[in-house]
């Protein structure tokens, strides 16, 4: 392995992080301060998620990392390699085979099971931050359950744009108590936040951990006459033909023509292996994954 402790962090630090995780699970949606460590990758690049993963991984686990839904994006590769090197854990790209999945900006399309942990990388954990810059003030607002400002913001969106103009990091209320930032996932993913797996959120630079225990009630904020609507591009995946998955949009020529493909690369590959072919896809082969 290497000169570093299993999963890089020392055991004392991991214990400290596990305590914060347990506290977070006990108070769903509450942001627990923790003494975030300096990691050998930059703040803002997943240090919170990496610390949470390091604290929950065991040598027998199988680990998966996605960024924008894909296993092959550069930062996902970098984080996966970090744990291969420092923890020697098995890694996989198959959502169903992983016990611990670290993610940035997506929830996998495949439904997660009770024996899986989803670890989110969080840039700004405070859902009220862009309404109130002061941490002292926002902690007070959470303590008093003072969320009027957020509803006013959503209302102002509707009066100005005719619609709630938040497309990602769409605020949710957890178990009827804390308003929480689900990290910058597209609002398409919000309905999946109620799931069988454990969801842990790590914000390294901001020194906060929060959590959603299995089957916790998670409600996207809305109004009766303007109900929450998860949205995606109005297309099917051009590679696998899926109509139910979140899509990336690609510019494919100088004329600006577009094509759409699943953001969840494992979901797309699995479907193609099963024989699904989209409008511009080719039948699945091993080397052209």
């Amino acid at each position, binding site marked *: 392995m290497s000169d570093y402790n299993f999963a890089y962090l020392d055991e004392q630090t991991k214990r400290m992080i596990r305590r914060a995780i347990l506290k977070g699970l006990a108070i769903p949606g509450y942001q627990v301060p923790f003494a975030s460590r300096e990691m050998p990758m930059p703040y803002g690049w997943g240090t919170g998620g990496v610390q949470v993963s390091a604290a929950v991984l065991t040598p027998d686990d199988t680990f998966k990392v996605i960024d924008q839904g894909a296993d092959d994006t550069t930062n996902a590769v970098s984080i996966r390699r970090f744990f291969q090197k420092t923890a020697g854990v098995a890694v996989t790209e198959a959502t169903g085979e992983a016990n611990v999945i670290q993610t940035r900006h997506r929830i996998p399309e495949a439904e997660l099971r009770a024996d899986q942990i989803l670890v989110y990388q969080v840039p700004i954990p405070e859902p009220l931050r862009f309404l109130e810059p002061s941490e002292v003030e926002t902690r007070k607002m959470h303590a008093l359950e003072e969320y009027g400002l957020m509803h006013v913001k959503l209302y102002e969106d509707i009066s100005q744009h005719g619609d709630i103009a938040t497309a990602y990091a769409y605020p949710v209320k957890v178990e009827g108590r804390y308003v929480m930032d689900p990290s910058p996932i597209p609002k398409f993913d919000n309905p999946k936040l109620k799931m069988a797996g454990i969801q842990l959120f790590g914000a390294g630079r901001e020194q906060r951990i929060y959590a959603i225990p299995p089957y916790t009630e998670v409600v996207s904020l809305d109004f009766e006459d303007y109900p929450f609507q998860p949205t995606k591009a109005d297309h099917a995946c051009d590679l696998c033909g899926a109509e139910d998955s*979140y899509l990336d949009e690609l510019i494919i020529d100088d004329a600006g023509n577009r094509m759409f493909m699943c953001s969840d690369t494992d979901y797309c590959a699995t479907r193609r292996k099963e024989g699904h072919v989209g409008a511009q896809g080719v039948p699945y082969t091993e080397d052209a994954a």
Partner: protein
Amino acid sequence: MYVAVKGGERAIDNAHAWLAEERRGDTSIPELSIEQIREQMALAVNRVMAEGSLYDPDLAALAIKQARGDLIEAIFLIRAYRTTLPRFGGSEPISTEDMACDRRVSATFKDAPGGQVLGPTFDYTHRLLDFKLAADGEVGDAPKAEPNEVRTPHIMSFLDKEDLIQGEPSGQEIPDDLTRTPLELPASRALRLQSLTRGDEGFVLGMAYSTQRGYARNHAFVAELRIGAVAVEMEIPELGFAIEIGEITVTECETVNQFQGSKTQPPQFTRGYGLVFGMTERKAISMALVDRALRWKELGEDNLGAPAQDEEFVLYHCDNIQATGFLEHIKLPHYVDFQSELELIRKLRREAQSNISQEAAE
């Protein structure tokens, strides 16, 4: 037909190989040694030690070499290394009173015990490029004096004897540690000082400068600036007493600031404090000014709404490792979020346009 783009792993490997080659530069030119950086780029080494919060000139020099001279990158390397080190105890407080001063100046008294010692300073150099250095870096010997055997008491101690400077309450026996506990506000002065001493030199300088230009103006006299070596002592449990485990060079700055008082309390000067690893006097002076500005509440002053008075603003934004990481993360992929914004803006535009054409038709 379209085949999805892959290749993240190979791209990373190739980028690293190219980076290593670029770092080395032209191989016909001799490679820099760690010793050369440590000895001849000493102020860069000092800054890396100060903001990296690790006193080790050799490691700092290595970090500078590895970072191709990018000091924030070097500080990052040191910080990341530092967190992996075991912590086996805390030292006694260093005694700057007993410093072997290389430099000691006071702007408030023309002379004082210990004297004014300029030391190796840029202060009165004329900033003319020395083209001779380009050809030949040899220097003659500097004149030597006998080591100063007399003690160099703090200038503040003389003001203190007259009760002219505000006394400081003693802090907690063991102060909080910024690197071991999450920063929560309001922060103790010990935590504020810890944050400032490892804060970005440019940021702290800018904040200090803003107080001089009128944003929470509080004129500061440099009562004393001293740079030199101090002993680090640590109590070893088996011995039961403190022994010297090493020596570090630090820069200490104490400022005397405007006085306050009332009918019941005679006026007293107040102070700001800066203490930084290495020879880092720009940073130490800046730190003292910002420390003083942040003390408005405990000194019963008004909040003028100045940035340097705002503890949350200063402490949350002075760390260049946090700042650079978050700033630079915006170059990572954001396809998913951008896609959701694309869908939203297209939808909003469709709706707005149909409203406009409807109104035109009516």
